[in-house]
């Protein structure tokens, strides 16, 4: 099984190998935190994680073939 990992915003700058949506192959269903760990991304880095356009937590288990979008935290005000 696999998921598509897509980084949005400035955190993409930290991962040159993840500039484009990237397929992450999984040996079994995995949580978002586990998938991020496999991709070498600290689980606390994204400001939000979207799966199927809905915000999900780090313990969410995406379905086979779904896209995970990692949004950058923002600053300002």
């Amino acid at each position, binding site marked *: 099984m696999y998921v598509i990992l*897509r980084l*949005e*915003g*400035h*955190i*993409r700058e*930290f*991962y040159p190998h993840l500039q484009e949506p990237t397929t992450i192959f999984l040996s079994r269903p995995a949580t978002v935190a586990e998938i991020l760990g496999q991709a070498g*991304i*600290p689980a*606390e*880095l*994204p*400001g*939000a994680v*979207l799966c199927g*356009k809905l*915000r999900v937590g780090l313990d969410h288990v995406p379905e086979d073939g779904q896209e995970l*979008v990692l*949004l*950058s*935290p*923002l*600053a*300002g*005000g």
Partner: protein
Amino acid sequence: MISGYAGQTLRINLNNRQSSTSPTPESWKKEYLGGRGFVARAFWEEIKPGTLPLGPENKIFIAPGPYSGQFLSSSGKLHFGALSPATGGYGDSNMGGHMSLELKQAGIDLLIIEGMADTPVTIVIDNGAVSFRDASAYWESDTYVSERRLKEELGEEWQIAVIGPAAVHGVVYACIQHDFGRQAGRTGVGTVMGSKKVKAIAVRGSKDIPLANPRAALAAGEKFMDAVMKQPGYTHWQPYGTPEVVPWASGVGVMPTRNFQTGQIEGYNGLNGPTMKEKVTEIDKGCTSCAIPCGKWGPGVVNGKVKPQEGPEYESIALLGSNLGINDIQQVAYLNGVCDELGLDSISAGNVVAWAMECYEKGYVAAEELGRPMRFGDAEAAAWMFEEIAYGRGFGKLLGQGVKAAAAKVGRGSETFAMQIKGLEISGYEARYAPAMMLSYMTCDVGGHHNRSWAVTFDIATGRENFEGKAERVVWLQHVRPLYDTLGCCRFPWVEAGIEPSTYADFMEPITGVKWTWDELLTVSERIWNLTRMISVRHVPGFGRASDLPPARWTLEGHVDGPTAGKHFTPAQADELLDRYYALRGWDSNGIPRAEKLQELNLGFCVAK
């Protein structure tokens, strides 16, 4: 001639109430672009050593950028600068709203206000023609009342920047407010305006701004807007604005809490985006030509008292919320409204009052001296103290001089937890265990401010203990982020929606007629960074490495709880960060730009003769 500019510098002399214009120098367009660049270049030229921040020789510089309002989404930014009464050095602040385009359409690339009026005035700029209105009747009025009054007198189409009671009474962190909730908040630019007895600046303009290729600019702008609105980041962040970052900031331990004693606030969901949308936000509010209306308008509430206001943004939530021990978004919104109507920078005001609360809880300052008990979590007490500060009453008069001055007066070790750098109160990111962010604050040209380099995510991505690459990242960010202030744009399309910053180079040719590369734009930003450093070298006695050191709390104490409990770097490690940073910058070991670096950046005029 380079296009995209209105063409004129407007100089207003308050001593004789005369004005004059001069052409915007072509060389400045090439070497400083506009906005922050024009402010810094004019500052060097016009503010002489020995000038007092609140004396008549100080000047206010106001500049839109070449992109301001020019078909590009989120291009409503306007830059303000002056010798800072908070730090004594280079001061500036950036504001959204609708005034940047109005100034350009009034024919103005740079507005210089000099001298001092003998009675309170409102400066009226109608398509470049200057007149003065007596402001005595509303000199002491709050910002909302004053702006509404001027809108009613002049007309809704006028764009107005106004100060409140805090600036009138000399609070060193008074801001300039515009559009009922947008501020040039930091470094006391409002205080300087107050010292000149300028209550407000009203602008109306309808002149054309020549673009090199308007059709190409429009097409590029449409493409950009379309790209922004298709980004998942846009869809997610826009409804909530910056408050949506609260759970993340608290979760990773960077949300200043109870005067930076820790980095997480219990019950942080009481401050997050969905809670604000439910309990505060009534309408979205945006700037000129913006696809991302991040401003949220709605009422704040404390103990049944209601105050309409715009916001609060994340920074105000951090400093007026968690840093005061408050996790109720309606209370934070109320305090934000109080600060806005008084014309107080909510970042500095929240920081200073948090210090006073810690002093009270530790027994350093008694309730009798403060005027009432000041405990963390007491929104009513905070609101009361903001009024005391703005009107210069009681202990508030001391707090109005900033946390550095207040701690020097109170003593007893309270300097340790006076959270400031260069005299400017630190903003909304607790950074003692985030080396790139700490270095960002330490080396920020105006003092403890986050917006020149925001590097928390880099620290998390690359490891908080790790120093490798941190100084490099800070230097890069200090060129990229202020470049937005130079062009007249907001950073949200990059940070929030994910548009590559290098995209911005593509707009230069259709707007100005000159092709620029991204690297050439970054060189301009590096030039400005070194220039603002030299301005502070020129104006602040003894300015150098010691000016870049963090507050003692960050190198002596760990967080009392949270994910980074007990963690901090040592003074020697802070020095190591500075060594790395100065070497990259081409500065000497005291943090002074070397002559060859200045020559390389065409800043030879800054080299001491």
